Every structure is written in structure tokens, then in C-alpha cells.
């Protein structure tokens, strides 16, 4: 059993260790990177690229079998990424980009389908299923309770009777 104090200090120690290791790693980088050069990020603007990729994971590559725009290297996907990158550089918001793509390719491009008449069942389906399931659960439990109370005995007497019967033939008591 870990005492509370030990539990509190252990991860702190770990954190210090990790920091020390990181510092050592950074120090170690200096001589190593001296002869070699550090690889440049693929994207000219890594912040914008990050934003682009986050957005693109939720978008479908239209010509691929089932890949997101972020993962695919199909020609159309690369073109579309360039297009989005360009729009973002010009100051378009994520919303603008999505609107532009939907206007051009329809809802098919979105991995999160918008809520509209045709997708109402899709979005409400799980909730309906859950309600049905819970309804079934409550009904079953009620029915079982009714099954017990049908026996005209007080609760205490019934409990005692069940206790007495319990070990021998529990199933029969039902």
C-alpha cells in the first residue's frame, strides 16, 4: 500500500527526472547537430499547417476509398490541401473553408455529417436506442419485482421465507 505522502512525491520525482533527462537530451543535441543540419519542417508555416491538418482529419478525401484529407496523398487531396492552405493564408476561418468545400462537394466531404432532415435519424438514433434499452431494463426490473410481490406476504415475512428457502432451492422461490 502506498502512503499518501509517498504517492504525492513519487510523480514529482519522476517529473524532475524527466526534466533532467530532457535537459541532458538538449545538451546532447548541441554537439550532434553541429556537423549535421536540423531537418526543416515540411510546411513553411508549421502553425498554419497544424491548423490545416486538424481540420483535414475531419474531411474526406473524395477520390480515396476511406481516407481523410489529412492522410491521403492522392492528387486531389494534395490539391485540396494546397487550396485550403492558400485560403487559410488569406485569412479564411475554418468555417469558411468548410463552407467552401461543402458548396463544392456536398456533405460527403464531412466526416461529421451536419444535422439536417436526412441525418436526423443518424444523430438521434443512439439516444433512441438508449432510451429503448433503458425502458426495457426498467420494465424487466419492474416485472421481476411484480413477480416477487405477487406472493401475498409482508416484506419482512417474504424476506424471511426467502432466506429459509434461499440455500436449498433458490430458483423455486421465484
Amino acid at each position, binding site marked *: 500500500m502506498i502512503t499518501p505522502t509517498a504517492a504525492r512525491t513519487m510523480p514529482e520525482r519522476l517529473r524532475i527526472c*524527466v526534466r533532467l533527462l530532457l535537459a541532458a537530451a538538449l545538451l546532447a543535441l548541441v554537439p550532434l547537430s553541429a556537423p549535421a543540419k*536540423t531537418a526543416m*519542417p515540411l510546411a513553411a508555416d508549421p502553425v498554419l499547417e497544424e491548423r490545416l491538418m486538424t481540420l483535414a482529419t475531419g474531411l474526406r478525401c473524395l477520390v480515396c*476509398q476511406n481516407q481523410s484529407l489529412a492522410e491521403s496523398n492522392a492528387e486531389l487531396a494534395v490539391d485540396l490541401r494546397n487550396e485550403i492552405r492558400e485560403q487559410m493564408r488569406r485569412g479564411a476561418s475554418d468555417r469558411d473553408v468548410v463552407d467552401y468545400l461543402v458548396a463544392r462537394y456536398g456533405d*460527403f466531404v464531412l466526416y461529421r455529417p451536419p444535422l439536417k432532415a436526412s441525418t436526423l*435519424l443518424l444523430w438521434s438514433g443512439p439516444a433512441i436506442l438508449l432510451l429503448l434499452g433503458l425502458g426495457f431494463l426498467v420494465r424487466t*426490473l419492474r*416485472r421481476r419485482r411484480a413477480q416477487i410481490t405477487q406472493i401475498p406476504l409482508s416484506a419482512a415475512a417474504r424476506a424471511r421465507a426467502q432466506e429459509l428457502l434461499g440455500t436449498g432451492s433458490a*430458483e423455486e422461490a421465484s
Partner: protein
Amino acid sequence: MIPELGHFALILALALALAQGVFPLIGAARGTLVWMHVGRTTALGQFLFIAIAFGTLTYAFVVNDFSLLYVASNSNSDLPLQFRIAAVWGSHEGSMLLWVLILAGWTVAITRFSHHMPEEFVARVLGVMGLVSAGFLAFLLFTSNPFLRLIPAPPEGRSLNPLLQDWGMLLHPPMLYMGYVGFSVAFAFAIAALLSGRLDTAWARWSRPWTTVAWVFLSLGVALGSLWAYYELGWGGWWFWDPVENASFIPWLAGTALIHSLAVTERRGAFKGWTVLLAISTFSLSLVGTFLVRSGVLTSVHAFATDPARGAFVLVFLGIVVGGALLLFASRAHRIGLGGSFDPVSRESMLLLNNVLLAVAAGSVLLGTLYPLVLDALGAGKVSVGRPYFEAVFIPLMTPAMFLIGVGPMAHWKKTSLPDLATRLRWAFAVGLVTALLVPFAMGGWSTPVSLGILLAAWIVTSSLAGLIERLRLSPVSGGILAKLGANSRSYYGMQLAHIGVAVFIAGATLVLGYESDKEVRMSVGDTIEVGGYNFRLDRISEVPGPNYIASRGDVSVTRDGRAVTTMFPEKRTYGDKKNPMTEAAIDWGFVRDLYVSFGERLDPNTWAVRIYHKPFVELIWVGWLMMSLGGLLAVFDRRYRVAVNKWHAPSSASLLLGAGAAGAR
């Protein structure tokens, strides 16, 4: 000549399957022992002939017999031997043949391990399996014959999809099919029980080990598929909510509900109707899974075949199986007793809640998977349902189920008290909470989703341990701790192992989501980049010929704090005349972290786009699934499945009392 022998063997197998589907069922209905015995012999014969058919097709692949259309379409002489064998199930026809081979294998296994069951029951089980098999064999012979000749034979075959040229292709489909088809046994047991009108605890006890074995195979199949996608597709993801993945995951969810429901039916005689329904649904969903992947209705990375006749056949077949089973169920429902009584707060009710959640999750994933197809078929527009939808639906449904993993095993059968449960679990919860608060800091930064995930994982572990400690403390066994540990059943340890496997899986999925780091850079020889505390240096790029491809291979040396860790060899492979080169990521596997290097495009002769990931604890995902599978396996070897199963023969058995008691209560 040899393929014709295989074709002929398949026809004989169909005849035997029909015999197996008809005579034992009639024999069981009339009580004719001789007719019942037909099941055992035909099962063996059927297996033999399907094995011959499968063997001849494999032989055709091994010797590159391109006069067979199926071989010519899926293999060529450059393909290494192991992938020529895997190519047997690389497409629709061969995978259907594998399906029936495995079905026949399961059937023979039933004939071998059923001596403790009444002959009448075995006959019915074999009869149902025979009918299922006949359906699939007819499907094979009439719509998907792998033995069709191509005359004149082409000198060379087309290639197998390079994505499938991997060891994963040798293991993943057979495992998955073992699971899918294994649920046909649970289905056959349920139908046999409905036919005999004796849905009792004995039926549940016979059915349970078979169902668990099928579930173990399906779990391994799902996990292998995920692992394969992780290392082969080069995106570093492990689950994509792709329709094909969902096709295996939906039956898994239903099967998981089934093994829990069977536990209640076996131990307490309750939920009999529900268990039967789940057995029917799980097998039906396995059929749907096969259909989805193999009929070509999906546009996804795995689906290759397209033919409307096949679709129609499978839909009709599915209709007969599901419709027939449900009709039978409806006609017998009034004879199904309620079984042992229980309180609204009891282990039974918690298992029922777990079942509701799992069933709703399965239904929701099915809805999301089929919705675009149905909408498209109705001409109501094209939509894509992907990760954002499934995560929004699945995680909220599974969170309470994960919480229940901790509570359920601690609850008593019949009746349990919530305050008592809270008292017994308060330490488990406290330790789980502290862990959840501390782990994010230890890993390098606070994150609420990570903390919640770790809370669930830690809660499952601590509550499972609390249960074990309580068992040891209350154990009536005298002696040391080892004697007390040994007194618990294997199925108890199996359950614990599987539940902790769920926790390990959650921990892995959470940690990799929260703390993975990646960089996408342009690298020329000599360039270095730091990711997740590791330093990666591209030392050289060379052209390396493979058996049927040419690879551009990079040598990437990895150091940490100036010390060499490993050298990794990511590749970009060009197969024959294929235009797009395939990515073969290099992975340095480790328990604490994976390093993952994947080549992108070649930007100029000396420069590549390279994506490097540092994935902490990602392997816990598959370790967790392995633990779940091993847990299931351990439970199967419980002693009680081998003894005390002859109760059914005795008229004074508890099962009869149970039926009478339940009938009286109505």
C-alpha cells in the same frame, strides 16, 4: 484436373451439408437415434471434402495455375510463397471458402467435444450448422465459384493488393473468421435449445465455453487487424472507424454482451430469452460483417468484390437466418421461464445494464456504418460518417459500462446494497482518483481527457484488486495465501484478467492520444530532427530490391542523450507497374513508447518528406486486447465445464424445477 476435383469435392460437401441439415433435425424431432447419428458422420465428411477443395485451391496458388480465373486475378508468379497462400483468402471467393472450411472445422469440433450432451441436442446443433453450411456452400457454388477456368490461361496473373502482402494477411482473416464462424455455434446451440423447448441452465453451460472461444478468436482478430493497420498503413493510427473495422467490431460488442448474459443464464437461470436473442443477433451481425466486407457495398480500403447477385443471395440468406430464428423465438417465447428472481440492485441487474449499454453501442455503430449506404440507396444524398460521429456516440455509452466493470463483480447475486458496495469500494475509488490526478503530471502536463481515461482504467484495476483482496479475506479455505488464491476458479481469474485487459487498453489509448508527438519534415542525408526526446538522423538512402518490389530505404539512426538507441529502416516500395509507391513504416517497438518513422513523398532525388512519431504506451492497446483474449481462454478451461454436466439426463435436475417454478410464477 486438380481444380475440378476441388470443385467436385465442394459439390459433394454441399450434398453432405444438406444431409446434415435435414436428417439429424428430423431424427431429433421423431426420436430416431439412427437419423440423429447422421449428423456426426456427415459433419466429418463435409469437413473432409471442403478441406480437399481448399487444398486444391491452395495448390493452384502455390503452382501458379493461372488457368483459374481466381488465381489469375489475385496472384502472380513474383509473389512470395507465403503471400500466394494468403492470397487464397485475399478476395471474395477464397475467403468464402475459408469461411465454410472453418465452419466445417467448428462442426467437427462439436462432434468431438459433445459426449456429455444428449444425442438429441447434439443432433439439433449439427442440423442447424449443416443448414448454415449448406447456405454458404450454395452461395459459393452458384455465385462465387473459385474454381472457374480462364481459357486460354494468361501467362501471368494480376497482383495481390500490395497492402495485403504482409504477415497480417496470413493471420488476421483466419482469426477473424474463426470468431465470426464460431458464433454460429452459439447460434446453433440457441436454436437447438429453442427447438427442444428446453432453455435451461444446462444449455447455457454447454454453450458458454464455445461462445467464449469464439469471442477469444474474434478479439484476437480485431486486435490483429488494428495492429496491422497501425504498422502497415503508415499513418500511425490504430483504429479508423472504417466500415470494415466496424464490421468486425459490431459482432464483437454483441458477443461481449452475449458472454456476460450467458453468465447470468448459467449461474442464475435468468435472461434466457435475452441470451437467445443475443446469440441470434451476434451471429447475424457476423453474417452482416461478412456481407459488408465481401459484397463490395462499401467503398473502403478492404473491400474488393462487386457483384449484385451475391448481394441479393446474402440478403436473402440473412433474411432466412434472422427471420427464421426470430420466428422460432417468437413461437417459443411463452415457454421461456423467467428464471431466478433478483432485485433491482443486484449483480444480475448490473449485468443487464451492461448488456443494454453494449447492445446500444453495437446498434449505434451499426447505424453509423449502414446509414450512408441506406441514404445513398434511397437517393437521399451522400454523407460520410466517420470518426467524429463514432467517438461522440461510443465514448459516452462505454464510460458507464467501464464504471460498471468495477462494481458488477463486487455486487452479490440476487440482491446487493448500494451503501455496502460503496463502503467496500471506497478505497479502490480513492486510489483510482489519486492515480488519475497524478498520472497526467508524471507524463508531462495536465489534460482533462487523459485524467478521465486514466480514472476509468485505474478504477477497473483497483476495484478488481479490491474484489480479489476481499475474496482472500473471506475465503473459507484454511492455509496460506497461495492455497486461498488457488481456491478461486479459473473463470474468476479469467474474468479479472480480461477486465484488467480493458483497463490496460484504455490506459494505452488515453496516453497515446494525450502525449504522442510527431513532426513532418523534409530530410536529406545527414539531416537530424528531434521528436519526443529522441534524435533522428537520416544516414543514407539506398535502393533495395525485394522479391517483387524495389524499395527506397532510409537508414535512420536514433540517439537519445547522445547514446545510440537503434537504427530504423523506413521504406517506400514500388511494386511492379503500380504507380503509387507503398509506404512501409519503420517501427522501433517498446513497452514504454514506439518510435514510428514513415516516408512520404520524394521531394527531390536526395530529399524525402518524413513523418516521425513518438507514441508513448501505444502498445498497451494490443497488450490489453491480448489480456482480454487470454482471460477468455482461461475461463474456458474452468473445471466446471468438464464435470457435472450430466445433470440434464436426470429428470429431477434443477433445470426442470426451474422451468416449473418460472411457469408457476406466471
